[in-house]
């Protein structure tokens, strides 16, 4: 068929423009460098608590940290919406597994001691 119409040069090539996919707040994004790993890093640098008598200020500062972190991670969503989306992601297998890992990292290493005892 191509030869009939002169190698198809005359035919106009239709370009169907694909819509730009909307970025999603999914587990990949949450686990990427800007996601939870970054949160784990910045909380160590940022969180300075004043302690007794400053409860509200301390919590407000903590909330601000979360808000800015979420804004960097996924600028589209408002704070409350973003939190709801992340909370929902927390129910997936993959994230649950990772959460356990993160917690275990912080645990004192009991198991190895017991092993060496035996």
């Amino acid at each position, binding site marked *: 068929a191509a030869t009939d119409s002169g190698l198809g040069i005359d035919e106009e090539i239709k370009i169907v423009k694909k819509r730009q996919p909307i970025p999603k707040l999914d587990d990949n994004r949450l686990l990427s460098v800007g996601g939870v790993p970054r949160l784990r890093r910045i909380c160590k640098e940022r969180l300075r608590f004043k302690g007794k008598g400053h*409860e*509200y200020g301390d*919590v407000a500062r903590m909330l601000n940290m979360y808000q800015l972190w979420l804004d960097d991670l996924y600028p589209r969503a*408002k704070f409350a919406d973003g939190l709801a989306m992340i909370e929902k992601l927390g129910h997936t297998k993959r994230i649950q597994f990772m959460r356990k890992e993160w917690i275990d*990292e912080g645990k004192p290493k009991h198991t190895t001691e017991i092993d060496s005892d035996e």
Partner: protein
Amino acid sequence: MPQTTLDEWTKESQVDPEIRAHVYSLISALGGIGDDGTYALGDNALLCLKDLRKWLKFADGQLNRRDVARCMAEANLVKGDLLEILAKISEKVLHDKLKHRVAVASLELLVPLTWPFEIDPVEATVNHHRHGPYIQLAQIGYKRAILQYDRARILQTAIRIALPSMAIPLRERPLRDEGIIRIALYFIRNIAMLSPPSNVPMDGDEAEISRSATIDTFHEQDIFQAILSVASSIGDEFVTQDVVILEILFYLLKGIDAEKLFLEEKKLSTKNTEELKSLIQKEKAMLASYARHAPSRHNRFGTMIWVKRDEDKVSTISGQDVLGKAQKSMQKMDRTKKWNKPKRPGRKKDDEQSREEFDLPVPMTSSARKRLKTFVEEFLDSSFNPLFMHLRKAIERETDRVETRHSRQFFYLASWFLRAECARRRTIKSKAADQKSAEALTAEDESYGLVAEVMNQETFILLNRFMQKSQDEKAWQDLNAGMKCFTQILLTVQEMSESALEDDQEIAENIQNRIFYEESTHDRVVNVLRSYNDQGFGYLDACTELSHVFLRMLERYSKQNVDLQVRSRKRARKIRKKKAEAQGLDNDEEGHVSETEDITAAQRTVSDRKFDFTRFAAKFVNQGSVNTFVSFLKFYQDLDTEQLKRAHRFLYRVAFKMELAVLLYRVDILQLLNKMIKGPEGLDTESPGFKEWEEFVRHFFRSVVKRVQDRPELVVEMLFSKIPATIFYLEHGYDRELPSRT
């Protein structure tokens, strides 16, 4: 084609012209202004009425259209003819046979015309949707005409038409007379039921057809007396009428605050002033909090600020209101985002449910309140027990006349009347305390016998079954009514146990025994609470109240009765295993059937065991119920003191009593609590519950801060609902030691 105007064209297309012609000619043959200037019946009025009825029945009913009803509405049949006829002959209805028949015939027309319009999703045709709004508005017009009719008492006439039939003893009453009683009562029900539709704009004065107006008219025309006499002799003289009376009561009482009804005039007015005061105060606080953040210069002042963020990034925010206020600028950054998380469309409410909506409060005029109060008192004294017993039996037997909505209405009304009775006793008591009057004695003398019929074992069984069934079928409105009833029963029992009479105390003890004995009841309350998912505020309010009341009373009860036993369903695994083994040896076909039966029987094995309140309370505290209470608390600006207290107690229990604060360590909850106390749009600082909340949130935040410092893992975990595997570690900082098996 001849030129027509738009009006004619629309009319033509909507109603079959032939139907219109027939109906109109019948209506004009019915009668009109006679020689003496009053209404005169046509020669064949009775036949005309019957014909009209046939049209309505056959053309509309069988062809499944609404054309005839619409024609009748357009022709002003109700106001122009039927009411005139009834007014004219109302005096002679009881004596003149022919007049009585004419009256019955017009009533037979009025009932289907005022029958509340509903669109049945299965049956409805285009025709229904086309005529729906018009007919609904017309029906409101009928109601107004009937209530406000100045020359005769239409409702009273309706009852008088039925009087001769009512006078016949039940056994000798022919079917026709039963029918007349029924239509008269249904007429009353229709009038009580009709209310302005929410989806059609109304014109005219809504006060003329409001609940107060209905109650006033019922009082003036002695309808309350008729209802009382039917209700009090139910079972003797009347049998099938119980559901109609139930519906009349339901539509009269739904949404009315039973507590307020029994407040004394003076107290009520002070309460109303207090309410007004608190509302003004609330508004002031709102405006003040707005003014604190409002710009101090005109809106084109054009300030722009940078918010420095890490990695040398900046965000810009415009507007001078954020100058020098870090918190404010953070909020503005969030607020100016355009995108919203798409929400799932809300649950669709079908028409019947929205009409039965009983969570909307109804305002009342003081005259209507007084009259309703008298009626409710008389009803409680004379008719409550017979009617509710009769209805309960009818529902248990699943009689034909009982429809699904009736059990919902039954339980709603049961809770309503229990509440009313408690409120009445309280007012009598307070009066007695005030002044040593004669009433002091009656207050103490009267036992709770007046409402005994809904406080017996049969009702509890029915209620339990009803709640279980509606939960299984996801009939949330039903469950809502069931929960309200259960809560009210608990509260009544509570008041009973504080009664001065020893008999009452004993009975209350007994009832509590029975309620708290079944472990399945405990489990159901927990389950309902934790499985809330978007069923609306009324439901949310009901389920949080139920669990609050239930938990509190169970706690008190189990403290008094240390050796409380409950009946629980034990899973008899061992028996099953044994049975399975035996079957395996036998290995024959017949045994297979009996095996499954055995297993179910074995699983149903019921055993008594000691009840442990702390373990039960622990069941109450889980992520699901926390989520439910948090979604309840999200309405904090609309909650009253009592509701806020309920939420406070629960969260307090979670955080400090059960030591499971880790369930609350979630960023969205922190944000909600922070917003409640620190604003913007927070709780009113002057409100009575504020102090308590402020204290609680401060304590809670302190624990959060401390915990985060101890265990930095929490920073990530705070984003999520906790998983059971890690809760214990997060709370205590070490793993639970599992009992090792040797």
